[in-house]
């Protein structure tokens, strides 16, 4: 057993510790920097995160990975951590402008230190969650990842929606964490110990799940709590309200970072110890996937509020990701690759969409009609919007297609052909509701005028992008296309 301070252990856990320290430092920067708090805090946070990312990439890691008591770090866990860090980095970059007055109709964000601190704490929780080797670390990671989000959602007291969203999210979240506690207690009861290996032994020993009531109860309750965080049906009703109420940057983090954490948690649990042929969860995941796809599609079809639209679209995307869990025996590796790649691609597309939403949201309420005439106001933004939407739909040559293809491949391995067909139909229907946005973007403002209607409420001021904004947009666009066509990133993830 390697002692806590021997080099491989240290090198494996250095990033997590560094992140924790960074979180604490960011919390206290408020005190140090009186003026321009927001800008400096953000700079510190970004620098810290960059360092963590470098650490994650550079630190040598033995191929088998390093494990100590409840904590283990393998090469695939590192990839999960890199995904979380990237999501947080992007959120911070997106939220910087929200601290200035007049950036959003909802009023400026206050106390940056708390904002960034909470974000980093949540990321640390995710790091812990994904490298858990026993249920205790798992529970702690899950709680640490979720609690800061309640606070972040309610961070704009002056805006009524924020408080309401925060309270609702907190109530639902608390119930879910109680549920997970209950579930873990049953799993402990069944396995006699909190360790994943003990759990795996017990799960594979008994003939069928139904013969093992405690295991079944524990599994279903844990599935419930993770389902809540994943926003899968039937636990998805909180998502639209919270996405609408929370500040834009938080919504972005919720739809990318938090969802990635939920998927990682489900992977570590249900593709780890509990992924045994007897436990026929595949069918339940399939059913949940179909229902999520249906709920996501139906919800997004008639939605006019942009934020709620993104909520329902993320529910549908959760449906696609659930398909990876129906792969059955021997599909853990393929499922992990598919999920990680898809989350990367989905994250890029979501942040591109949020980038556009944040710019449009400066001068207009974040609703779909406010996108009208975007192609006139700024062709580049309209093109970015188009690329992100086509990627979210999953049309080649953009990245979304490859992501979804991998997910469907995992389901197909186990013969879930009906599920794939429904998934593909959902892709077709998603074309309809995503195109509603693009139609607005390319809607001619002229016809509104020459039809005698008063000039549309939105003043047709062209949107000018700052230099940083331009680079970000270009990077996102190139990423969406490159991820779709070049196999480089996929091979990297697969080799892990």
């Amino acid at each position: 057993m390697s002692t806590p301070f021997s080099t491989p252990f240290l090198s494996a856990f250095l990033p997590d510790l560094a992140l924790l320290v960074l979180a604490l430092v960011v919390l206290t920067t408020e005190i140090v920097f009186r003026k321009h708090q927001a800008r400096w805090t953000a700079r510190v946070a970004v620098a810290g995160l960059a360092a963590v990312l470098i650490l994650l990439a550079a630190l040598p890691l033995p191929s088998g990975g390093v494990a100590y008591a409840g904590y283990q770090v393998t090469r695939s866990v590192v990839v999960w951590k890199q995904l979380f860090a990237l999501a947080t980095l992007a959120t911070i970059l997106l939220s910087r402008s929200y601290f200035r007055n007049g950036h959003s109709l909802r009023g400026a964000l206050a106390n940056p230190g708390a904002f960034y601190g909470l974000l980093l704490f949540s990321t640390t929780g995710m790091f812990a969650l994904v490298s858990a080797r026993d249920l205790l670390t798992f529970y702690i990671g899950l709680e640490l990842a979720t609690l800061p989000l309640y606070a972040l959602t309610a961070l704009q007291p002056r805006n009524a929606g924020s408080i309401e969203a925060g309270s609702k999210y907190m109530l639902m979240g608390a119930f879910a964490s109680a549920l997970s506690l209950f579930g873990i207690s049953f799993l402990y009861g069944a396995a006699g110990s909190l360790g994943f290996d003990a759990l795996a032994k017990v799960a594979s020993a008994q003939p069928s799940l139904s013969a093992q009531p405690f295991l079944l109860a524990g599994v279903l309750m844990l599935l419930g709590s993770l389902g809540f965080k994943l926003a899968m049906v039937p636990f998805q009703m909180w998502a639209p309200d919270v996405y609408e109420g929370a500040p834009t940057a938080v919504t972005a983090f919720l739809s990318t970072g938090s969802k990635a954490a939920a998927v990682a948690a489900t992977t570590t649990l249900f593709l780890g110890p509990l992924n045994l042929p007897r436990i026929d969860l595949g069918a339940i995941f399939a059913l949940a996937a179909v229902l999520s796809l249906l709920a996501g599609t139906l919800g997004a079809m008639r939605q006019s509020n942009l934020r709620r639209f993104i909520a329902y679209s993320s529910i549908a995307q959760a449906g696609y990701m659930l398909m990876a869990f129906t792969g059955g025996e021997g599909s853990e590796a393929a499922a992990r690759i598919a999920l990680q790649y898809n989350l990367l691609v989905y994250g890029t597309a979501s942040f591109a969409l949020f980038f556009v939403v944040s710019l449009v949201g400066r001068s207009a309420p974040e609703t779909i009609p406010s996108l009208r005439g975007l192609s006139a106001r700024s062709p580049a933004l309209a093109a970015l919007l188009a690329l992100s939407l086509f990627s979210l739909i999953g049309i080649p040559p953009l990245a979304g297609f490859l992501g979804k293809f991998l997910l469907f491949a995992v389901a197909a391995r186990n013969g879930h052909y009906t599920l794939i067909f429904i998934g593909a139909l959902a892709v077709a229907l998603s074309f309809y509701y995503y195109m509603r946005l693009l139609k607005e973007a390319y809607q001619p403002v002229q016809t509104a005028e020459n039809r005698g209607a008063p000039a549309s409420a939105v003043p047709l001021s062209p949107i000018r992008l700052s230099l940083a904004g331009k680079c970000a947009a270009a990077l996102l666009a190139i990423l969406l296309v490159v991820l779709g066509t070049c196999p480089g990133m996929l091979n990297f993830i697969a080799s892990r």
Partner: protein
Amino acid sequence: MTPVSTFAYSAASNLLTLTWALPLASAAALALFPRQRVSAIRRFALAANTLNLILVAVLTVLFFKSPPVPNTSSGGTETMLAFAADHEWLSVLNVHYLIGVDAISITLMLLAAVILFSGTLASWTIGAPGGTGKVAALASSENGAKEFFILLQILAAGVFGCFISFDLFTFFVFNELTLIPTYLLIALFGSGRREYAAMKLTLILMGGSALIFLGIFGLYFESGIHSFSILELSQVRFHPDFQGWAFPVLFLGFGILGNMFPFHIWSPDGHASAPTAVSMLLAGVHMKLGAYGCLRIAMYLLPEGAGMWMNVFLIPAVVGVVWGGFVAVRQKDLKYMNAYSSVSHCGLVFVGLATLNLIGLRGAVLQMLAHGFITATVFAVIGMIYQRTHTRRIPDMSGLMRSIPFLSVVFVIAGMAALGLPGFAGFAAELNIFLGAFAAAGTLARMGAVLAVLSIIVSAIYILRAVNGVLHGPPKENAAVLSDAVPVEKIALLTLLAAILVLGLWPGPVVHRIDDALMPILNNLKR
């Protein structure tokens, strides 16, 4: 895993990749053009497409000079490819960029190249002030010529990519690549209920590709060799139960794209609302992708499934032939008339496929080519008449022969070719299909053949109704003096007519090559 038969990796395969790379590159280049310089944009697009046409023509000549010699070692069921290349694209899924061409794909590529060339010429006035391309959709005041040609080139790249790729994943990627441009072209540059038509078209096509998606996964996982290559999968004997459900899924998936009867509802609205060049490419080439997919993927890889289901699929095919004709008779709008005529002619393609014998299959491939050229010509002429009279309703026009003689003569010739007058490509194809249908065993096939032959009467009725309604009869008083075809349009129409005549009078060489390409598929069907 059986080793992919080694191909003479020849430089020509780079040329083959160029066929789709060139349009894509020209699309990227067009993006750099300033929006206002419409004539420069048009000329550049035309140059790119002409170059593409020359490239494909050279490849065709090369192919016809030295076709791949079929190897009869493995029972002749392996398709031999010319200009083949095989690079690994995604190692995770064992996806290869496997390209190559046999007689069927090279002729269809020639069809695509010719139609693209004449389509570019036919949309010469798009974007010009006063031209039909006055884009109400684009917010900016300038016209949309730039976006129009960029999207057209991407659509072309997708189509060419499909015809050369022999890897199911690459084929599917290129097939889906055509979806976005088609939707945007119709939604932004169409006319009439363009958004509804564009959305309806794309949704139904995506529904079709959902079925294809399912079929491809089935093939990948059930084959045991986990490969997407059509060549390898063709050697695998799939389990009959699997073929039982996989074949109809794949055939319907491609049938929806290929305008099969119950699922044809997207094509009339789609064509009527699409601008000229798009409806030419859509009806002339994109639909052929469906029938090509049915033949190359559904029937070649799942022969036993084909044996089980073909009688069933004969019914919608034959009904489609007759139904398309009857509905076309009542249409007032020229484009709807031609769209329903395409439904009828595409039904004939499926009747050809359903015969499962050499003559029938050969007829189906010939009909793909013939109908491609003919429907493109008719759409081009309708588009040009629309540019002049600004109406497509037959009752509103009469006696145009006097004011626009050239266009009228081309319209009459195209009409005659469409109703299958001998001497044109239509007759050569229909003769083969009907002969194949009569030669096929089973009373159902024979009844189908009788109905299909009777359809030539209905096609005569609706085509003459349109031709006489528009061209003959006393010229309308308010008919403004219409200007006859400009040289640009003349070149477009003449290239298409030349193709129709050559295919109609000398089908020999083309048919001989197509028979060689069909041999592997037939040997599979007979196993």
